[in-house]
Structure formats: structure tokens, C-alpha cells
């Protein structure tokens, strides 16, 4: 573990990304303490500029506090990003492992299904799903996981394909081990590194999709989110720039930080790339 941290910290920008993420997580965790009231609450004079009328980052057209929205929105973004990614990784591992391990017709079938999902443009597909399911936090999570699992499935399938013919797996067959045990205990631990890397990058994509959906008004109407804030302020971009800008910056920094961390993990987990610098 210590050696891993040692390798990770050689990548400066990855460390920076990690610090930013920790800050965002802290912000989300202390949201109820920093802004104990509902972020939808009308807190004061509408369209106050940042620093006026007691608003740190200004207020929107209905007098809602932008700063409170960002802090509470961080909770939404991180939660949705994380849960949607976990669900997608789970589905992806399931599909990838089965088709890589068993091969043959099952592989053929599962991969064709995967391709169907891959050929539909993912954001439009997500919109469609949320529209059908009615906007709620659950449907957003479902939509995001449904559009992002195929990448994981492809990756896991490739890893399983190459690992299953390795001699240590064959040795397990000769010991009479069951397929499930071989997949879970022998092969899966050996492909965790790439899964962790792709998963970390998927969190960033999930946050972007969620913001996009909320921006279009397809997010959960009862939960504050960054995308919703941008959507609410977009008509006033020229008169009240702060309403859109701060949530936008929040998205930018968070997604960037997650990508940096993902790349750092990749460098640290993949020993061959490690030698590059």
C-alpha cells in the first residue's frame, strides 16, 4: 500500500486532483452544516451579485443562494456519479466475465447485446430513458449506468480472455475448482487494476451526464444539482453571469480532478507505464 502511494505521488497532477476531490467531498459532507437550510429556499433579493446582500456567490432569479446550491449540488453530483458507476461496473463485469470466460455462442450473444448499447449515442439514449421513466434520482442513476456499462464489459472481456488461458487458471481446472470460484478468486483479482482506472474515469463522465440531464430539466426536480443551476440561469447569462458560471466552474474542476486521479491510478497500477517519466 505504501509502495503504491509512493508510485502514485510521483505524478504531481494526480496528487493535485486528489486534493481537489477531497475538498469537494468535504464540501458535500458538510453541506447541511454550512447551509443548514433547503437550497431551494428563497433566501433574499433575487439576482444579487456575488458579495452583495449577504450572498457569497450571488442569488438567482428567484432569490435562491447560488453558493448553497453548489454545496448541496456537490452531494448530488458525487452520489450519482459514484452509484451510477458502481452499477455500471457491476453490469460490465458480469457481462464481460461471462462472455470472456465461456466464449463461444454465449460470448457472441452477449457481445452483440453490448454492441447494440454501444451504437446508440449515449447522451441521447440517457435522455430517452429518463423521459420514459419520469425524472427522479433513480431514473437518472439507471439511465447513466445503462449507457456506460458497455465499455467496462469490453475491457473485462478482454482481460478474461487473456487470463483464462494462462497456466495458473488451467492449474485450477486440474484441481477441480468450480467456474464461479475460478472467475471470482483467480481471474477477477488479476484484472482489478484496469477496472479501477476505467471506473474512476467513468465517475467523471457520469457527473457530466447528470449535469446535462438536469440542465435540460430532466433531473430530479426535488434535488439541487449543478446542472439544474446552470439550466435555471442560462437565460440570464448576460445580465447575471454568476448564476451559471459558478456551478459550471464546479463541474469543470471536479471532472478535471477525477480525470487526473484516474490517470494517476493508471500510472501507479500499470507497472509498464510507470517507467515513462
Amino acid at each position, binding site marked *: 500500500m505504501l509502495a503504491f502511494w509512493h508510485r502514485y505521488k510521483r505524478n504531481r497532477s494526480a496528487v493535485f486532483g486528489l486534493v481537489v476531490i477531497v475538498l469537494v467531498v468535504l464540501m458535500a459532507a458538510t453541506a447541511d452544516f454550512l447551509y443548514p437550510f433547503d437550497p431551494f429556499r428563497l433566501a433574499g433579493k433575487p439576482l444579487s451579485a456575488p458579495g452583495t446582500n449577504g450572498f457569497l456567490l450571488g442569488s438567482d432569479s428567484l432569490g435562491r443562494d447560488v453558493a448553497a446550491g453548489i454545496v448541496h449540488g456537490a452531494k448530488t453530483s458525487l452520489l450519482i456519479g459514484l452509484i451510477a458507476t458502481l452499477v455500471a461496473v457491476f453490469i460490465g463485469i458480469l457481462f464481460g466475465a461471462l462472455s470472456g470466460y465461456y466464449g463461444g455462442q454465449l460470448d457472441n*450473444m452477449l457481445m452483440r447485446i453490448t454492441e447494440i448499447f454501444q451504437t446508440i449515442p449515449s447522451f441521447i439514449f440517457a435522455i430517452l430513458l429518463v423521459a420514459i421513466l419520469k425524472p427522479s434520482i433513480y431514473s437518472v442513476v439507471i439511465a447513466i449506468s445503462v449507457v456506460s456499462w458497455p465499455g467496462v464489459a469490453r475491457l473485462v472481456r478482454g482481460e478474461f480472455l487473456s487470463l483464462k488461458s494462462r497456466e*495458473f487458471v488451467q*492449474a485450477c481446472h*486440474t*484441481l*477441480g*475448482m468450480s467456474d464461479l470460484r475460478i472467475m471470482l*478468486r*483467480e481471474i477477477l483479482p*488479476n484484472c482489478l487494476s484496469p477496472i479501477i482506472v476505467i471506473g474512476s474515469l467513468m465517475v467523471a463522465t457520469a457527473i457530466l451526464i447528470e449535469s446535462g440531464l438536469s440542465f435540460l430539466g430532466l433531473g430530479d426536480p426535488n434535488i439541487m444539482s449543478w446542472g439544474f443551476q446552470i439550466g435555471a440561469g442560462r437565460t440570464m447569462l448576460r445580465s447575471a453571469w454568476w448564476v451559471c458560471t459558478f456551478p459550471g466552474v464546479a463541474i469543470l474542476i471536479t471532472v478535471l480532478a477525477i480525470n487526473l486521479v484516474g490517470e494517476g491510478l493508471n500510472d501507479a497500477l500499470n507497472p509498464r507505464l510507470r517507467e515513462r517519466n
Partner: protein
Amino acid sequence: MKQKLLNISDLHIELPEGSDRQYAIQKVDLELKQGETLCVVGESGSGKSLTARAIMGLLPEPHVRVSNGEIIFNGEDITKVSYERLRDLRGSEISMIFQEPMTALNPVMSIGSQIDEIFRYHVSMSKAERQKRAIELLADVNLPNPTQIMNAYPHELSGGQRQRAMIAMALALKPQILIADEPTTALDVTTQAQILKLIKDMQTVYDTGVLFITHDFGVVADIADRVAVMQHGIVVESGTVKQVLNNPKHPYTKALISAVPSLTPRKAKTISKEKVLEVKDVSKTFGGGRGLFGFGKPSRQVDALKNVTLDLYNGETLGVVGESGSGKSTLARCIIRLMDTDAGAITIEGTQINLLKRKAMRTWRNKIQMVFQDPFASLNPRIRVGDIIAQGPITQGVAREDALKRARELISIVGLDDRSFERYPHEFSGGQRQRIGIARSLALKPEILIADEPVSALDVSIQSQILDLLDDIREQMKLSMIFITHDLRVAAQVCDRMAVMQYGEVVEVGKTKDIFANPQHNYTIDLLSAVPGKDWKGISPTVNAGKSKAKAKPKSRSKTS
């Protein structure tokens, strides 16, 4: 008096900080004369390849560099010349052939244009002239249809043909020095014999000095004029081939040479009459599959096994010998049910195990176990050694504590430290890992052990240790063993009986002693006569007598490679 071409004196190559030793090679003195073959012998990590690379100026600088000493080639110190001069020398004065011709050749260029490149960069010739010269070269190295080969891509040639093409390229400009870095290690033994002869022939034609790097003393005995033995980056002994091979002075050389298995078969055991395993008419075909909806041409079919019939008697070691692609590994995998057979019967104790369903097969796993070839791929890197060994019994329903206790016993039986139990596989060397693999296969107390090339990935000194271990275990545990190998020397020392395989068929079965003394099938004769160094640590002259028979071979490989 032959002219001295190369003089290496006091050469030191420094490794980057944090490596396991400071110098890759130290105080190396070597010299090479015209028309002479100098063999540099050593085990993996001895620094023999780096020495060759230093001469070509191919060290991975700046991490690894020459820190002291000189390499004088025709009065010029190669370690000091400019990069441009070095580039002039490479290919025209000094050239090199590599171990793996597939990776040394560019896969997207035809052989012809790769040879052409050498002429274009080094000499000025017209296109027609270059073409003519290239065809001559390919004919010189005995490639059939040189004009066709000119347009062929590397993947269209066999391993031996690729190596021939490499040699043609290396000799294109009649270099004074040819460096060969394990050029035959990746080849089958019959092909190896042809390539060695080719190098020797070419050397006499061009009067080239050859620096030949190898780990195989058999090859040394066949090709070398002088020998330098390297250990941990130091030349521990050098001299003429006769001196070094027949009268080694340094203890390391002595140990290495005594570790080379002799081709004289060991004393045969009396073999019991009780059959523990019967293989009858087993066939296996690969390929022939179609796409999802059954469209498309069925892919090419290969008969990996054709009506193989073999018996294994109680307590014996049966060798299965053959070159790559002969089906010997497929046979092992069919017997242990890693693959399904297409036809035939594999019978243990009256039960036909090749028809058993997976669940029913599980109880039979106790009877038959396997040791794998590659010690680096056969252990799961994420599982501790103790658990790897205990896995088998646990899977078979033994209580965890008992299985772990048994694993501890096995670790000491295979000669490993008790502390190994808690460690991960990557902390062990190749030989140690192979011991772990053997311990794993013994954990189920099998009656039959299949060893699939268990020593071919190991250095010769470690190889003999593992063979001794297998022998001890076989006696102790009363195992019957199927030993798969391509190396006839190993087979001679290990096997009571032998089966020779070619193209998926068993062409000859018999007592090891009888096969070595009096081989019947032409392919067996070919194999035996191709073993490197047979005149040095060889066998009775009957094999050589059989050579004349080999001329009229109806079925043996028409390998032009």
C-alpha cells in the same frame, strides 16, 4: 596467421542505481580472430547479451553504459566513436542476428525490401544490381525459390526460414564480424541443426569472425573454436573448446557442464505390468468453427492428435518427445481433461475419464495432476504460496487447517524455506516457482503426474535440480509419470520408456535405451542426429550409422527451413 578483428579489454558496463548489482559486466576481456567462432556461454543474467549489445553500440543508454574499458575493432575503439561512424559499422562491418526472427524482422515489409534497405543505406548500387544481389544472398542461405521469398512477408515463412533470411541480411555486406545472440533457441532441434550448419558454412565462405552467444553447451560443442564462460558479468573461464569442455578449470564451468544431461540413457527400471492409464485411439481436431449464424467459411482444420494409443505402467516415467506442433502438449491436456477429445478412450482404473461430465471428473482429479511449463505464468500472482498449494485439497473438500498443514509439509518436501508459505509468487526465482508448482500438484496425492516441459524455461543448473526433485518425489510417492519434453538429453535421463510424436501421431514407442540405441522411424533418427553436441556428451555410434537411412525419408519433415 589470422588477423585479430576484435579486442575487448577490461570492459565494464554499469547498471543504473538501485539494480541488484553495480556492473552488468565487469573486467571482461575477449578477442575474436578472422574466421573464428567464439562462443560466450552463461545462464540468464550472466551479462552475455549485454556484451554483444555493447559491441554493436546498442546498450540502452543512458541508464546502462560502458563505464570503463575498450572495444577495439580494427584499431578503432567502438565505445568512443561518433554515432555516425557507429551507424556505418553496423550492418556493413559488424552485423547481428537475434533470437526471435519474427520480432527482428519488420512484419509489414517484404523480405526483399528489407534486404534492399541494407544495400541502399550502405553502398551505391543500381536497383537491378541490388535485386540480383539479394536473390543471390537468399539462394546462398539455401532458401528455396529466392525470387518468391523476395516478395514474401515474414509471417509467410517458417521460423527456420525467417532465421535464414535474417542471416542473409546480416551477411549482405560481407561483414567481418557476425554476432549471433541465441539464434537457435526459439527453433526446433532439427531446424537448429540446419541453422548451425548454415552459420558454419557461411563463415567458411566469407571468413567471418562469429561471436556466438548461447546457454546451450551442446551448441557450443558443435560450433565453437574458443569458449568464454560468463557468470554474474565476469568471464570466469576461457579457452579453446576442447580445453573448456573436456577439462574445465573453474568450479562454475565444472558445475554447468556436469549439469548438462548426458545422452546416454540411464539404467532402466524393471517396469511393472500393471497399467495405470490407457490412451486408445485418441483424436483431436482444432478449428472448423463458424460465425454466429453459421455463415462464413469454416476455419482451417488442424489434426492435433491422430489415433494416439499409449499405455502408462505403474511406477514408470513415460517420455513424450517431439518438436513444436507435434501434439504432445495437446495430448497432456486431453489426458488431464483441460481439453475434450473428439474420439477415442482415456481409461483409468476401468473408467473412461474422457467421457465424464465435469462434476463427475472432479473426484478423479485426486488421481491425476499436472506440472506446467512456465513457472512465471503457472502461479496466480495475487495468491500467497501457502494458499496456492492448499487450494487443491480445499477444493476437494479437505478441511482448511488440514490442507494448510499438508501444504507446509510439501513446502519442505520440495526444498523450500518454511517462510515461503506467507509470500507471494513474484518473490521467487524461476526454479523456486517450479518447486511451488510441483508442491501444488502433489497436494492432492496423485497417482499419475503429467509434467509438461517442466524444465524447459529454466537454466541448466536449476534444470538438473528440478529433475532430481521430480525423481525423488516419484520414488517417494510411487508416482507414475508422463514427462513431456522436446529435449532428448532430458528424456534420456528421466524416462524409462519414450513415445516419439510427429504431426499428432505417435511414430515410435519403446524403452528409452532401445530407442536411443536403435531408432526405427526416420523421424526419430532425424531427431537423435540433430541433438547438439552429441559427439561431445553423446551416445553410442549407432545413431550416426542410422543417419544414412534418414536420406530416404518418405514422411519426415520436408522442411526447407
